[in-house]
């Protein structure tokens, strides 16, 4: 029997068989077999670059598999594009949001909702009614007239979900939906998904194994394109899954060292910085990071972290206050001067700010030094030196790519982060600012990055780590500052910081000074 056109019948079982997909130089999916039954939640886990997104794009008809078939209720189907997948009732929330930023929420939904296209005039009121229905049914509040670019990441996520549900999805694919969410938003999403599972099947992709064990019925693990484990979630532990995922036991390293004992390196005093919208995003922030110390900055994102990092890196104007490194004033200096003074920077947005995605990996690795005598003769780049540098860093930092000449933007998130880390660390910085360095990365990559940061600490570098992950902060930091609405509420010693204490501070509630130890070198 040949492939049939998809129909709107209920999906009792979705099965993929022998799916293989190759990209130049890499096999992204390698004979993958999977089955998902009615009302089931399947968690799909695997390292960055394991092929999860590729497999899901094949299910949506966005990629055509080289080999393999998809079956719905036992019958083979062929998806030539997302239209066919929608018709079969499959919907997907993509890892990178698929929203048009300069259109409103309602317009974004209307784009995919073919019933609204039947008349000369777009039927936006019909679309809004549909949005209201779905938003009511699933308790997902949205403002249909807001422009997407005005929304926070969490709100955009909600729009994505609503959009997919409006298209009539009865089989939902969520590709790393929690990577960009705050812990609170993540909890809400998990509750919602559990409720939704009563009338649909869900494939859920995540790196956070705690979410996987909390939510899913079945779990499948992909490693380098192959399914290495399939089974029920009950009885699995996060650590066990991590081992299966990476092929070795993952132990996140901890900072066991004595408290930072070196001299003050990065000193920030009374810093005031404006946000893009013109209000004060930082209001008198002060702290110092000492040699051989990791100072963490906890806080719900959007409380000034972005502005702080940019001000330190010279990318945003400082209105008031002072930044200095090793006693040298760097306030409002150019990024070039700041880089030359020895400040390393791992930016939040790794694909847009950390690399030039159309440049090769090799070029990205010398992006900050291409003009130095080490890599150039004045006007020409020393290409052999460039290649040698890249090869040695690739080995030291385990950068997985088909070639060092391929575009850096074609790498997976974890490998992009390794390229950035390699470039920054190879420059032997005096201080390093790391902004959400492990966001969206798998446990293997997280372990790798944590290990490198601790090595750097041992070498005496001052590290300023901005993160939302409390576990990460508590594992790595000597001290943890908490930021709320542009002010540092408190700085706790790492070994004294507890989840509840940090949680309260992150919510802006300052406990009485009684239960905290005074910090040396800390500004009141």
């Amino acid at each position, binding site marked *: 029997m040949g492939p049939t056109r998809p129909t709107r019948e209920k999906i009792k079982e979705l099965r993929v068989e022998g799916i293989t997909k190759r*990209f130049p130089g890499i096999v992204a999916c390698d004979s993958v077999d999977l089955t998902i039954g009615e009302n089931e939640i399947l968690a799909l886990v695997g390292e960055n670059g394991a092929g999860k997104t590729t497999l899901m794009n094949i299910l*949506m008809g*966005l*990629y055509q598999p080289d080999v393999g078939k998809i079956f719905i209720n036992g019958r083979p189907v062929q998806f030539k*594009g*997302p*239209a066919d997948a*929608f018709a079969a009732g499959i919907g*997907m929330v*993509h890892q990178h*949001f*698929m*929203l*048009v*930023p*300069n*259109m409103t929420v309602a*317009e*974004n939904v*209307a*784009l*995919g909702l*073919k019933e*609204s*296209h039947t008349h*000369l*005039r*777009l039927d936006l009121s019909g679309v809004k009614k549909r949005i209201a229905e779905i938003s009511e049914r699933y308790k997902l509040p949205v403002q249909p007239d807001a*422009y997407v*670019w005005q929304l926070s990441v969490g709100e955009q996520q909600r729009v994505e979900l609503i*959009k997919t549900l409006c*298209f009539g999805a009865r089989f939902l694919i969520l590709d790393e939906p929690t990577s960009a969410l705050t812990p609170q938003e993540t909890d809400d999403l998990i509750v919602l998904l559990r409720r939704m599972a009563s009338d649909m099947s869900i494939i859920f992709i995540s790196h956070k194994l705690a979410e996987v064990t909390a939510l899913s019925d079945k779990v499948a693990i992909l490693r380098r394109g192959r399914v290495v484990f399939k089974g029920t979630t009950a009885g699995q532990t996060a650590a066990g899954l991590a081992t299966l995922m990476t092929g070795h036991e993952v132990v996140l390293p901890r900072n066991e060292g004595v408290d930072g004992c070196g001299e003050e390196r990065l000193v920030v005093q009374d810093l005031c910085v404006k946000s893009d919208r013109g209000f004060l995003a930082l209001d008198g922030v002060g702290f110092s990071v000492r040699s051989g110390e990791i100072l963490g900055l906890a806080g719900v994102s959007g409380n000034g972290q972005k502005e702080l990092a940019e001000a330190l890196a010279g990318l945003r104007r400082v209105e008031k206050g002072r930044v200095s490194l090793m006693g040298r004033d760097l306030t409002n200096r150019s990024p070039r001067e700041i880089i030359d003074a020895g400040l390393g920077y791992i930016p939040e947005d790794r694909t847009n700010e950390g690399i030039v*995605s*159309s440049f090769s990996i090799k070029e990205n690795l010398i992006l900050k030094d291409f003009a130095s005598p080490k890599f150039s003769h004045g006007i020409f780049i020393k290409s052999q030196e460039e290649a040698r540098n890249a090869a040695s860093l690739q080995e030291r930092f385990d950068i997985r790519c088909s070639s060092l000449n391929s*575009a850096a*933007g*074609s790498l997976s998130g974890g490998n992009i982060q390794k390229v950035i880390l390699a470039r920054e660390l190879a420059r032997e910085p005096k201080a390093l600012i790391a902004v959400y360095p492990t966001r969206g990365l798998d446990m293997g990559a997280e372990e790798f990055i944590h290990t490198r940061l601790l090595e750097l600490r041992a070498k005496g570098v001052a590290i300023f780590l901005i993160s939302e992950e409390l576990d990460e902060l508590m594992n790595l930091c000597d001290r943890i500052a908490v930021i709320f609405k542009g002010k540092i509420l408190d700085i706790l010693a790492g070994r004294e910081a507890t989840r509840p204490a940090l949680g309260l501070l992150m919510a802006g509630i300052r406990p009485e000074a009684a239960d905290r130890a005074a910090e040396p070198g800390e500004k009141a």
Partner: protein
Amino acid sequence: MTALTIVLNILSIGIPFSVSLLLASLGEMFNQRAGIFNLGCEGIMSMGAFLGFMCAYSLQNTAMTPYANLMGVLVAGVAGTLLGLLFALVTVTFHAPQGIAGIGLQMLGTGAAGTLFRHFVGGVTGIPGLPNCPIPLLSKVPFIGPVLFNMNILAYLAFLFVPLSSYILFKTPWGLKVRAVGTSPRSADTMAISVQRTRYQALAVGGLFAGIAGAYLSLGQAKMFADDIVAGRGFIAVALVYFGGWDPYRILGGSLLFSIAQSLQLSIQVLGIKFPYEFAVMLPYVLVIVVLAFTRSAVVKGPAELGIPYDREKRI
């Protein structure tokens, strides 16, 4: 001559001047909203101007005479549409770099129009062209009547296209798709919008407008054809799209500003005002550059993926 008559005179020349620019830049706006910039606009206008002229010229003194101008505009529009589709084939299907492909189309159109003209016609030949149709009553309003309501039919239509384009772009399903594929083709693709098809359609519309803009020059404005009849208007049209921030009304403003400046500089020369004419000729262009430099770029509004070919299976 009083100051008022001078001003009215400048306007009555400047406003009809703006029509071909307006048509061409509205067409280019649809191209760019869909993510493709077509520098070949100039070439399509040349072809439109030539074919419009050729049609009207060869139908003179035949049974078709009453329809000569109409046929001219139609043929120019069809040719423009076909050239737009050719550009789509090259840039959308074959992913050719748009800047280079556009310059190619410009040379093809301008060269072919000139060669065909010399082959079939030869020297300067006038045609009756599009007659002015004064609008009853309105054209009698003192001062503004003769300026605004005594133009040819194509000019009125061009001004009507401004609100119409705005409606199409912002209120119709097709406009929604065009904006989506220009700003975020991948998102559009995941929502089952065909990026390629929509871009083809937008380029066809852009070609149609450019072809008619050319026909306006030969049939409505010059009432003849010459090799250099378009004289860079196709490129100005592309600049006006940026100037207008991809918005039909602001594009109208830009076209008017440019044409009125052009007409002002002509008056400066005609009136014999002591002002170096080289500078007068530069005036409209300098004006556009200055305004462009001072308008805040409409990043949030504009097509973010302008100029980037889309390939579903390519990551970057």
